């Protein structure tokens, strides 16, 4: 009997030591180094984004591609705009490159995404103002006078601040406020 209980004590001690060791080794291991995002805040709580960004953007992509909804906040274009880093020459670095925002955690947890095989991994370069294209430009073969599609992003800012309730598909107050 006494033999049994002391063995249990030993087990308990071993377990404790194991836990302590495990804990300290976890605390000591460097996590991913995540470059900081632009602005004060993400499109949702940072904690929430960490856990749920994949569902948010995949949900949004179906909304946009199939249903043409383009006023949702989880646009991949905008993730890139806020989370892209600049190099020494002030040039945007691909967001999926090693150590960059979308690659930092993913390398750490061995997730592979193919999104940036199609989606631009850097924001569009700023194109000169196309308002009054001169004749020389109009004749150019490369069509660089063309209205840069980037400008469309500006349309979101021009959305009406007060959407009539009957038209709003947003379900709660917080969502409606966000579209301002």
């Amino acid at each position, binding site marked *: 009997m006494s033999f049994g209980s002391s063995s249990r004590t030993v087990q308990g001690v071993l377990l404790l030591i194991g836990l302590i060791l495990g804990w300290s080794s976890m605390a000591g291991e460097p996590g991913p180094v995540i470059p900081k995002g632009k602005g004060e805040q993400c499109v949702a709580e940072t904690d929430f984004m960490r856990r749920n960004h994949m569902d948010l953007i995949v949900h949004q*992509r*179906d*909304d946009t*591609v*199939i*249903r*043409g*909804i*383009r*006023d949702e906040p989880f646009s991949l*274009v905008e993730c*890139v705009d806020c989370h892209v880093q600049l190099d020494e020459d002030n040039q945007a670095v691909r967001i999926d490159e090693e150590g960059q925002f979308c690659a930092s955690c993913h390398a750490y947890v061995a997730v592979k995404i*193919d999104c940036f*095989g*199609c*989606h*631009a991994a850097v*924001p*569009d370069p700023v194109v000169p103002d196309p308002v009054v*294209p001169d004749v020389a430009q*109009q004749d150019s*073969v*490369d*069509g*660089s*006078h*063309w*209205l840069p*599609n*980037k400008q*469309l*992003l500006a*349309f979101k800012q021009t*959305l*009406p601040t007060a*959407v*009539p309730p*009957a*038209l*709003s*598909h947003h379900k709660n107050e917080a969502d409606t406020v966000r579209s301002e």
Partner: protein
Amino acid sequence: MKPTPSDQNKAVSARRSFLQRLGLLGAATAVAPALLPAISRAKVTALKGVSDEQRWGLMIDTSKCATGCDACVRGCHDEHGISSTGNEHTDAQWIRKIDLQDNLTGQESSLPMMCQHCDSAPCVDVCPTGASFKRADGVVLVNKHTCIGCRYCMMACPYKARSFIHEPVTDQKSLAPRGQGTVESCTLCVHRIDADDDLQPACAVSCTEEGHSAILFGDLNDSESDISIAIAKHDAQQVRSDLNLNTGVRYAKL
């Protein structure tokens, strides 16, 4: 177990209040159109999604389309960041110019050919994953997220309007994602028309900028729209009308 009378009562009253709510909903939708003019159609789309109230289409006036001019092709390819890979045979082609000659009269005409946004689209029928689909507003698209690159749709298309991307793509425009291994074609510039009423497909804008105005964009469902009026006036035709696809792109004076 048989439902007790009180269960049934609950069910009935639940149904009643549901019907009542439905009534309210009806009232709300009756009010909504009155509010509509205050907010543009595109903004409603961007917020609520596309609907079958519109059917987008193009009318090409072939008498205004100039032989040798490829402004529409350049406009389209600029907009979507399409450039040559150096291998002409496999380059993506969302829109191309075709020159026709009548064997008898020798009369020449020129026209752009692109996805005809068929109402009953063969490419949609054959797609094994549902990636080739028709939006509620009639725009036929490839959902590249579910496209497996099998190219059945390319074979089914009577207009040869689709391209397969053989090589990796770089320097994409942020609003026009494109990549290796999927099929693509004219999107009627959904990223533009969804966003703003004033924005037309790139091909139409380029054609107008070039001084030809041969491409008219608009709502085929609206009998008052410029495009519907022009189609009626010129009796604009479908290419391969024998296939009964009810195309969204019509050609005048063909």
